């Protein structure tokens, strides 16, 4: 549900979830769908994520787990998502290290959500993306 009072269907976002822990991916999906948006897919690796992006023509938002199996981690994938698709993204990280956080921030994400994060933290990211898109359309 939208907490900013603008109503859930102001703009429906298509969200790609990149997360190798399926229960956490389900949690993210629940938040996205409860807020009135749709999930483009759940990818467990960077390769899977890029395949979904290519196939569907891109997402409105990508949620990125920092730690991924394979050659690319969340930050590597973020760079491609930004440069190739220009899609906004949000990091979700289990690391509390300053160095790791700085590496995330350097990619200019919409937010870095420190795990464990709560429903409202992601809701706020979705709401702010909706309102910035609405402002841009005016």
């Amino acid at each position, binding site marked *: 549900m939208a907490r900013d009072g603008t109503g859930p269907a102001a703009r429906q976002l298509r969200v790609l979830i990149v997360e190798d*822990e399926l229960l*956490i991916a389900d*949690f993210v999906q629940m938040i996205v769908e409860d807020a009135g948006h749709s999930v483009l897919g759940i990818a467990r690796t960077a390769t899977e994520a890029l395949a979904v992006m290519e196939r569907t023509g891109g997402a409105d938002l990508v949620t990125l787990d920092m730690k991924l199996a394979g050659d690319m981690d969340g930050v590597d994938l973020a760079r491609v998502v930004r440069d190739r698709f220009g899609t906004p993204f949000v990091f979700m990280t*289990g690391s509390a290290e300053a160095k790791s956080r700085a590496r995330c921030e350097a990619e200019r994400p919409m937010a870095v959500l420190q*795990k*464990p*994060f*709560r429903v409202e933290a992601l809701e706020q990211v979705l709401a702010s993306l909706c309102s910035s898109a609405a402002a841009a359309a005016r």
Partner: protein
Amino acid sequence: MRILVVDDDPDFRALIARALRTEFDGGTDITQITDRASLDAALAAKPLPELLVSDLSLRWDDGFGILQAVRSINPLCAAVMCTGTGNEDLAVRAMKAGFDDYIVKSSNQLRRLATAARMALERIQTRRGLEENRDLLTRELYHRLHNNLQLVTSLIAFTARSIDDAGAREKLNDLGGRVQSLSLLQERLYRGGDFGRIDFKAFLEQLVDNVTALDTRNIAVRFEVEEAALLVDVAIPLGLVANELVTNSLKHAFKHRAEGELLVALTALDPDAHILEISDNGSGISGETRDANAPGGLGMRLVRRLIQQVGGEMESFARPSGGMSWRVTVPGRPHGSSAS
């Protein structure tokens, strides 16, 4: 590899340097230290020295002082002491001070000196490897812990969503909040690097920011929080208490109101004794039933128990300007704790 050789006797310095060059088969950069100025210059240069060979008695310092200076710039520098006056007490002192080995200074001991230096370096290598492994393991462990806490948070949210009863759902959300504040404490503990104490000021500010950010009303927060590195045994219960009191104020003090003010204060009485105060300008105790004031309420039961855990006391009073204040005083050391 950079090696420092410290000795007042130029002939012996040269002998040591030759023995080390032979032992390490080139690839060494040996600096001979003759006085304070050459030591300072050597310590300012890069790369850092990896091995120190020092005489005990010098005209301008002694071997212990040299070791201290070298280790202050490279704590993992291998060190061997040599001295003309060999005795057991001195050997023990040298080892206690942090030298890796101790050799009697004589030309027929040069071979032993070189071997001792090699072994000291190998030990340091092993130690460095172990420390790197330990750091990696700690990082992995924390990463796993945060992921698991995310699973717990997710499971609580799933469960809350499957429950129709609004009251039961709220209780589950409160549980989510408690898990979240524990996670914040855990994160602070890891970030601080000192696993005995938590930066409670940073924790408190982040906790209150997080909790109030979830509130859609206009809640102004005033922080009067002093710097405090609290012992983990105190910080964890007190952190949970802060979460309960802030959540309680938001839930009850500002019921039916569009805005409110919170004051969050932490005062240090001495390095280990503190006063935590959470105040609001809400409806006060008479206006609404306040969870924390109801003896049977879960929030209040938890608060009482957690304060008992740290041997503290709590008082609550109505503020003259309206609203309530909760003041928790914690003494220096938790009861029954052996934390150092």
